[in-house]
C-alpha cells in the first residue's frame, strides 16, 4: 500500500511525542523533578533518556565535566597572613607551546641582583585568539596556569586579559576541578617528602 512507509515513520514520531509526556508524568508520580534539578539534567543526558531532552539554557545549565577547558587562568595561593603567592615563575613554557601564540609574558629583573624575578611582571592572554586547546595547562611544570570553566564571556570589545583578570585563587581551582586538584596536591606532597628525605640523607 502506498503510504505505508510514511505511516510507519509517523508512528516513530508519535511514540517520541508520547514519550515526552509519559516521562514527565512518571517523574511526577514518583515525586521527582525532571526539570531544573541536577538529577533531571543528568538523566536527560544519560543513555536512558526518553522524550524531550533539551536543557533550557540559561534557566538550566548542563553539568560540566571536570575536564572542560575554556580560556586559561593563573592560580595563586593565599598564605597565612593573607598575602597572594602567584605560582607562575614566568618560565615561558606556556607562551612557547601556545599554538596561536596568544600568551604574552613580561619577566623583569631584580634591580639589585640583576637576576630574573620569578613572578611575572605582566601576563596577557589574548582571549580572542586563544583556541582553548589547553596546552598551557598541560605543559606547565608548576601547576600555575589552568583552564577555566567560565564560558559565558561574550562582550562588545576585544578581550585582552591581564594579570588582574587572570589571577584566581587555588580554592577556585579546587572547586572546578576537585579530582585534578587532589592528584596534583598529592604529587606535590610526594615530591616534597622525597626531597626532604633526600636532604635528610645528604645531611646524615
Amino acid at each position, binding site marked *: 500500500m502506498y503510504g505505508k512507509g510514511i505511516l510507519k515513520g509517523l508512528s516513530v514520531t508519535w511514540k517520541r511525542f508520547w514519550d515526552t509526556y509519559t516521562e514527565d508524568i512518571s517523574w511526577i508520580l514518583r515525586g521527582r523533578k525532571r526539570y531544573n534539578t541536577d538529577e533531571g539534567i543528568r538523566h536527560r543526558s544519560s543513555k536512558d533518556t526518553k522524550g524531550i531532552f533539551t536543557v533550557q539554557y540559561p534557566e538550566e545549565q548542563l553539568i560540566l565535566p571536570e575536564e572542560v577547558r575554556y580560556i586559561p587562568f593563573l592560580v595563586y595561593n593565599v598564605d597565612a597572613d593573607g598575602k597572594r603567592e602567584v605560582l607562575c615563575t614566568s618560565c615561558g613554557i606556556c607562551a612557547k607551546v601556545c599554538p596561536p601564540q596568544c600568551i604574552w609574558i613580561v619577566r623583569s629583573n631584580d634591580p639589585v641582583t640583576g637576576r630574573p624575578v620569578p613572578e611575572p611582571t605582566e601576563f596577557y592572554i589574548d582571549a580572542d585568539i586563544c*583556541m582553548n586547546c589547553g596546552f598551557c595547562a598541560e605543559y606547565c611544570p608548576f601547576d600555575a596556569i589552568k583552564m577555566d570553566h567560565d564560558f559565558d564571556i561574550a562582550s562588545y570589545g576585544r578581550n585582552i586579559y591581564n594579570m588582574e583578570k587572570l589571577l584566581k585563587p587555588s580554592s577556585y581551582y579546587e572547586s572546578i576541578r576537585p579530582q585534578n586538584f587532589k592528584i596534583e596536591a598529592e604529587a606535590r606532597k610526594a615530591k616534597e617528602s622525597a626531597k626532604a628525605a633526600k636532604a635528610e640523607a645528604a645531611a646524615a
Partner: protein
Amino acid sequence: MATAPFDTASPVRTPLQTQTVDLVARFPGIVAADARPGYTGFIVNKENLVEVATAVRDELGFDLLTAVTGVDYIAENKMEVVYHAYKTTGGAGLVFKVQVERVDPIEVPSLINIWAGVDFQEREAWDLYGIKFTGHPDLRRILMWEGFEGHPLRKDWKEPFFEEETKPFKSRWPEGKHTFSEQKNPFRDNLNFPQNFDPDKYVVDKEEDLYVSLERYTTKDVEGNMKTDHIVVNMGPHHPSTHGVLRVAVTLDGETIIGLKPVMGYLHRNHDKIGERNTYLQNIPFTDRLDYFNSMSNNFGYAITVEKLMKIQVAERAEYIRVIMAELSRVQNHLIFIGMLMNDLGAMYTPSLYTFKERELILDVFEAVSGARMMCNYFRFGGVVRDIPDDVLHKIKGLVSERLPAKADEMERFLNENEILVARLKNIHVLNAEDAIRYSVTGPVLRAAGVPYDLRRADPYSIYDRFDFDVAVRHNGDMMDNYLIRFDEIRQSLRILEQALKQIPQGPINSQKPAYQVRVPAGEAYGRIESPKGELGFYVVSNGKPNPYRYHVRPASFVNLTAVEKMCVGTKIADFVALLAMLDIVMGELDR
C-alpha cells in the same frame, strides 16, 4: 588480562604491506630511487612522467591515485611533486616524484588523462606553488581568489602580519608586552597586490574563465526543436544546501544540468602554511579544525603520520582508546549525515534533531575525556592526553551495547520505507565503480559503488587488524545505497567498539614522556586513515628542526568533490542538492 604496556610482538601486519615494486628495473635510466635519508619512492624524469604513470596504473595495477603534493625545496632550488598511488585491492602504495628546477615557469605534465582525480589537486598545487601542469584543461586558481598575487606556499612568500618564520615567536617572552598585530603593521605592507592594482576599478575578469570552462558541455541544437538558451545559475556561497560557503556554478538546459563547476576557497586559511610555522605539537589543535565534526579522526591521522616519522610505538591502552574515539566519531558523523541529508531533501528538522540527539550523547563522552565537545585535541605522539575515567567508559558501554543499536533501528524504521524518501533516492545514479576509482573517490561513496575499499582492512593502521568486522559495501551506486551504507557503517563501527571495549587493557596511556617539543628525524611520511568521509592523508616532511618543513593535508571532502561534475551532469537541478549531500563535504576540510 594483564598485557605488557606495549608489546612489540603483537601487531601482526598483513603480508600485503610488505610488497615492493621496483620501478628502476622496469624503467632503467628514466626512474631513480629516492636516496635521500628518510625518503622513499622513486624520482621520475619529467619528460617520461606520463609514460611511467600509465604503466603504474595499467601494468602494475595502482588504480587509485590518492594524493598529489607540491613541495618547495628552496635550498636545492627545486620544486617537487609527490604522487601517492594505491591499489583498490589493498596493500602498500607506490610513491613517485617529479623534480623540476625552481625557475618560472615551472612545468610538469598533467596526469589528468590517467587519473581524473588529480584535477583539483593539480589546481591546488598550481594555486599554492605555481607549478604549471601542462595539459590540464582548466588550470585556474582554486583556493585563493582570482586576483591574488603570488603563490603562498612557496617558502619565500610571507603572509600579511608576518612575524617570524617559525613559532614560538620571540616577542612573546620574556618581554611580551601585548600589542595588536594590526597596530604593529598598519599598512599591511607585506600584502602583495598585482601590479597597477586599483580596488575601485577591479572587476573579476577571470570570472569569464569559469563560465568558459562550463561550455565544454554545450549540447547541440537538434534541428526543428525550439531554440533555447542555456542559463548559468550560481548556487551559493550562501545557500543552505551547500553545507557552508561552497559556490557552485551550474549551466542549465531547462532543468537539466549540462555543466557544473564548484568554486571554493571562501573558508581558506592556508592551513598548510600555518602548519609549517607551527611546531609538530602545535599542529594537533589545528587539525581539529579541518573536519570539525571529526576532530578525533583528524588527530588520529596526524598523530600516526608523525609517529611514523619519529618511529615510535603507541602505548597499548592508548591504541584502544584511539580506536574507541575514532569509531564513536564515525558513528556521530554518519548520524549528522543522515540528519543533514533529510534537511537537504526538505524533511526539515525532525529527522535531523532525532539524529542530533544521539550525537549529543557521544559529544558528552568526548567532552568528558578531552574537555571539548568538538575541538577535542585529544591525541599526543605516542598515545593520548589523558585516560578515560571509569564512569565515562561505563557510559560508552551503555551507549554502544544498548542505546545506539536501538536508535539506528528506530531511524531505519522512521525513514527507510518512507515513500517520498525512496522516490527521491532510489535509482538516481551517483557513480559507478570505474568512475569512482578514476576520480580518486574514497570512503562510503566508493564503497556504495561496489568497491570494498576500506583502509581499516586494505592497509590496516593502528590496531584495526585485531577486530572482527565487515567492510560495508553496496552495489547499485545509487543514492539509496549511498544513504543505506551509512547505517551499515554505523553497525560495523558499533561491532568494533564492542570488541574494543571488551579487550581494552590497563596500562599507561602514552609511551613517551610528555614533552612540548618533540624530536622528529629528517625524512618524509604519508599517513592515512579511514576518516568517516574517506581517506584522510597527511604528508609531512621533516628536516630535523622543531617545525615541519612541509605539512600537507589530503582531505577526503576536497578530493571527493572532484567527482561532483561527473555525478551531476545530466541530472535534474533538484537532485543536485541531494547528490552533493552524498559526498558529505565539510568546508573546514575542503577549503583548509
